[in-house]
């Protein structure tokens, strides 16, 4: 659909963002081992700066793709090097470029062997993840989607904890197996959707309900493993616990979002009928993930594992919001994707910082940090409260919108999801109580030095974002507004046809006015 595409002439910003980390890889390869950190950091900072035009030159009004680039790549079958961002993917690209330098900073001293290879893996991973968000051709999307596995496999397997080999192969095979059906679905879509891999064209084609059902579950297999949704989450705790800090941060903050992004970009707009008919199943799985994840988090004695399970719970909110299929739910979900990236990224960095000092992630062995490391404790408490969803902080806005959206869909589901928020307060505050305020273990006390300037510097940007989104989310909501509207619009047609007179239709009628007023209300309620 050409009218969907808003071409931005001039600079190919997206290609630039994709290429820059790869240039950094070349530079790192050629440089000495001792310089690899500096080069990688410089590269990722330049990439971040190069991604800023996406934010400043973004047109909030249109729902179309922006910064579009399209070149023929392979003639037969026609595959394009097609890139573009809309209001859903642009914030995620920025999140990725924003977190990459922080990941390098967090590994500054933690990674002391094969530093060069580490930095290379990290930069390749950055390119691949950005590629997934900006690809507008389904094959290109899949190539980035899979390419990502290799650097992540190496990050976990080479620089991870004692059980890293098991965790790495489990991560790899789980996600690879999940993607099998996705690849076949892409091929089927090509033949059914007019012999094209163009994501926008495929979105506008219509498919028979029975085919939609098959494709929906094929997509589901790939995306649900990535999110991860219950019961496909078992790779996540292993991968998180074994991965080095930077790996955990990238994994939690960016890679998990690829799954929910997939639902938003493909499942909802391409398969509207199937989405509507399978929504109850997804909603049920999401609620289970929220409560089960929170419950598991409660039982953990390892800080990293606790946060890993909390991710399962928080990502449950995101899928819940997406499949509420209304503007509040989806906007809340996208916002929550960003929020979870910031907050959980911050929490994992905090765990990494303490692990570097005490070489233990056991809650019982790390206590009394408030006295020994007051500055560190402040940051930890901020991220913890943000994770709980304290008003004034980022997660509150997202969770609030998600719950509003879900209430419109079904009150019982929303009530159960709200229970997850209470549980999250329990496990996070219990964690804070034990490691921040408990007595310090005499064995560990000498090792507990407060934050260095580098560590301080890498946590501050995250805290700024926590409060900025918490107090004034309007700019971010404005960015995603039109694009979310378009996702809803692709839904609404089939909803009205399928479920006439159902409560869902009622929601749709209200969608337009409510989502505007709500995003404003959310901003006004919080200052």
């Amino acid at each position, binding site marked *: 659909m050409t009218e969907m595409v808003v071409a931005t002439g001039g600079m190919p910003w997206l290609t630039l963002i994709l290429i820059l980390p790869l240039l950094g890889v070349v530079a790192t390869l050629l440089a000495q081992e001792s310089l690899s950190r500096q080069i990688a950091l410089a590269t990722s900072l330049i990439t971040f700066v190069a991604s800023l035009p996406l934010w400043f030159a973004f047109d909030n009004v249109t729902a179309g793709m922006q910064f579009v680039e399209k070149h023929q790549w392979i003639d*037969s079958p026609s595959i394009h090097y097609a890139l573009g961002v809309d209001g859903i993917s642009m914030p995620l690209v920025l999140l990725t470029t924003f977190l990459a330098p922080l990941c390098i900073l967090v590994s500054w001293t933690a990674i002391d062997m094969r530093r060069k290879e580490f930095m290379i893996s990290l930069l390749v991973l950055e390119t691949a993840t950005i590629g997934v968000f900006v690809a507008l051709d389904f094959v290109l999307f899949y190539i980035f989607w899979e390419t990502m596995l290799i650097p992540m496999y190496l990050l976990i*397997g080479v620089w991870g904890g004692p059980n890293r080999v098991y965790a790495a192969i489990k991560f790899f095979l789980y996600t690879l197996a999940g993607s*099998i059906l996705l690849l076949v679905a892409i091929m089927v879509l090509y033949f059914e959707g007019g012999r094209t891999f163009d994501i926008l064209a495929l979105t506008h084609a219509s498919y028979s309900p029975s085919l939609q059902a098959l494709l929906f579950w094929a997509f589901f297999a790939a995306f649900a493993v990535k999110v991860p949704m219950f019961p496909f989450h078992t790779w996540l705790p292993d991968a998180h616990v074994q991965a080095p800090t930077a790996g955990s941060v990238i994994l939690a903050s960016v890679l998990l979002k690829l799954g929910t992004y997939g639902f938003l970009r493909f499942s909802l707009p391409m398969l509207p009928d199937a989405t509507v008919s399978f929504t109850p199943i997804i909603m049920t799985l999401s609620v289970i993930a929220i409560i089960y994840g929170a419950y598991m988090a409660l039982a953990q004695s390892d800080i990293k594992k606790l946060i890993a399970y909390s991710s399962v719970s928080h990502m449950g909110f995101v899928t819940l919001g997406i499949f509420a299929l209304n503007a509040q739910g989806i906007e809340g979900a996208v916002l929550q994707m960003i929020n979870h990236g910031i907050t959980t990224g911050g929490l994992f960095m905090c765990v990494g910082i303490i692990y570097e000092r005490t070489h233990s992630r056991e809650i019982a062995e790390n206590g009394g940090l408030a006295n020994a490391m007051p500055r560190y404790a402040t940051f930890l408490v901020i991220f913890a409260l943000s994770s709980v969803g304290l008003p004034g902080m980022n997660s509150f806005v997202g969770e609030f919108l998600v719950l509003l959206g879900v209430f419109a869909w079904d009150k019982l589901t929303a009530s159960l999801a709200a229970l997850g928020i209470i549980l999250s307060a329990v496990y996070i505050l219990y964690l804070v109580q034990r490691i921040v305020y408990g007595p310090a273990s005499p064995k560990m006390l000498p090792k507990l030095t407060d934050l260095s300037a580098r560590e301080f510097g890498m946590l501050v940007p995250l805290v700024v974002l926590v409060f900025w989104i918490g107090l004034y989310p309007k700019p971010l909501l404005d960015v995603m507004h039109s694009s979310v509207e378009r996702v809803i619009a692709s839904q609404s047609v089939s909803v009205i046809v399928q479920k006439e007179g159902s409560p869902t239709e009622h929601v749709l009628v209200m969608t337009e006015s409510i989502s505007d007023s709500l995003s404003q209300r959310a901003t006004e309620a919080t200052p």
Partner: protein
Amino acid sequence: MSIPFADLAIILPELLIVGVACLILVLDPVTPTGKKDYLAWISLGVLAVCALITMEDFGETTVAFSGLVVMDSYAAFWKMLLYLVSGMTILLSMSYLKEEKIELAEYYAFVLLALVGMMVMVSGADLLTIYLGIELMSITLYIMAGLKRYEARSIEASAKYFVLGAFSSGILLYGISLLFGVTGSTRLSEISTVVNGPASEDPLMLLALMLIIVGFGFKVAAVPFHMWTPDVYEGAPTSVTAFMAVASKAASFAAFLRVLLEAFGGVKPNWNLIILAICLITVALGNLVAIVQTNVKRMLAYSSIAHAGYALVGVVVAGWVGVEADVSSRGVSSLMLYLAIYSFMTIGAFAMIAILRKGGLEGEEIEDFTGLAKRHKGGAFLMLVFMISLAGIPPTAGFIGKFYLFMAAVNADLAWLAIFGLVFAAISAFYYLRIVMVMYMREPSAEQEKNTRLVLSPQVSVVLACAVAGVVLLGIFPGPLVSIADLSVLPIK
């Protein structure tokens, strides 16, 4: 009966190569040991000349020797691939033969003669021509497998290969003779006319078809005719293994497909389900048994069986009934593309095994790769690239190959076959990644650190560079090769 000059011109590359092979055999005795390298360079030279000649043959179809030999784009495609593979094998062998102390100049003559056999196979338009090619290739390979005369394993490989190979050739020949009895001809085109008409339900014809499929099944190492593969691949000198795994498989597939489509293209229902069954068990068994191997050469042997299974997906699509002609051609072209890509990654992997030395021996156990990434960053990275390509993970060529094969399958409404293949591709990632794992994630023992290292010669560097360039470039820019394969498919009936 005189042979017209025009016919000889068609087989000029074959004649040139045979000539050089004979020249090498003459020069060998008068060349002192240690100075035999120039014979390899002569061989490479003739390959380059032949490549230039064959290049001219793209786009034309010429029949020679009253229908015994055909030179078309299909044959030209395979010949170009075979030149490339033979050239890489020769380069790989130069230092390897010295390391293994089997520096025999006949070796290069054997490579060239086997190559001629393969070339005859891919441009044979008559079952007897094809059989002649198969025998020339096989007999040479039997000898080459046993070149490490001092090693029992190599002799055993040679003997086993000979017995089973001769047996399968016999089966094939039996099939050919039965078919001659039914149709009165060995020309593919004439067989096709009879098979399509009066003999389409003849049980003898079906028996002959089965025997021919079994015969070729042995040559391409498809399950259940694969028993010889692991032992022979393990015992043969590694450079020979690479040559067998790639060149003989490619040539056998080329001939197999031509026989099936040109002679039996009108009776697809008679063979496509059998091929489908062979395809399924080959993919499954090859990948599953590869998991438990501890020797890399054996593992790659089972992996080559599995890849033959993937290539058979292309044959299945080409033989599927009720699809349009362009869908069937896509089956053929995706098979051609797949085997070309397979050649690069497999030769690369075998080259890595050949240069990994453990003391004076070859490092061919998976354990020998332990911690390689610490000592040889570049080498370990190359092996990583070959392994992820064999597993079919983007952005490598292995993914492109599988993508086109399974695209063709989905196009023929065989989406379940694509799912089946991809499930086993995911399983295969497990054993390919094990090599990556031992290279990058295990600490080498002191002894391994001291003894096990990569021994690189300039020639092997060229082979590795060529292989990795193929794997990476075809992964990112597959367009040109795809178009060439599309233009070189057999005419589908």
